[in-house]
């Protein structure tokens, strides 16, 4: 029973991965990564039950907590192009400013380390 669930989770993960590869939009990919993470959490829990080792539950728990942070980081990066702003103080109009000032300034400058 659990084995069947595990296999089903694998299949679901493959489907999420396909969405991750083919996009096409950015939000598809974010959602795919997030749901891929959820599948992994479930897979680990099911697998822990399958082999009778509860240790993997810890890992699943860790993923559940940390996957959230990664998703927030991806979305914030996409929205604001920087981590240096507080979400609590940033209104909806600010990022447009942040983006537009960069447009002209650094058209050929792709990083000072290159």
């Amino acid at each position, binding site marked *: 029973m659990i084995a069947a669930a595990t296999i089903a989770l694998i299949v679901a993960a493959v489907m999420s991965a396909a969405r991750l590869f083919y996009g096409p939009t*950015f939000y598809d990919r974010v959602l795919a990564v997030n749901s891929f993470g959820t599948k992994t959490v479930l897979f680990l829990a099911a697998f822990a039950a399958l082999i009778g080792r509860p*240790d993997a539950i*810890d*890992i699943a*728990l*860790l993923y559940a*907590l*940390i996957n*959230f*942070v990664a998703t*927030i*980081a991806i979305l*914030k990066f996409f929205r604001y*192009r*920087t*981590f*240096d*702003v*507080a*979400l*609590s*103080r*940033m*209104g*909806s*109009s600010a990022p447009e400013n*942040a*983006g*537009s000032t*960069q*447009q002209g300034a*650094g*058209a*050929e*400058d*792709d*990083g*000072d380390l290159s």
Partner: protein
Amino acid sequence: MSSNHHLVLRVVAKLLIPAIALFAFYVQFHGDFGPGGGFQAGVILAVAVILYALIFGVDEARRAVPPWLVRAGCAAGVLIYAGVGVATLIGGEAYLDYDALGPEHHHGQHLGILLVELGVLTTVASVMLAIFYAFAGRAPDIPDEEW
């Protein structure tokens, strides 16, 4: 411009940050019994601060965990770890032989492992934060274009 713009996010984060930090300490102290230890716990603890920085801003995080503390923490962990070794030397045993730390056999080993894992936790958490601060505090220098 309303400060309620990301209300849900902030509330969820406020709930999750202590949970993540707590989980870090669980991993730290449960390392004797299950998977985990200082390395993993250090990273998880740093993730808690990073989540705080993502939601409330890097400046706010710098006020909560100031850079001087991060810098001191990097070195302090190494000092703790190496210091345990020095303590065992003074206790008359070989370097990092934890038996010198306790009267009874397992006691010394447990205490030693606990202390060195604490050292690892301190260094790992500090270094992860140092890396995050070093990169995340920067303004974007790259042209904005479609992905």
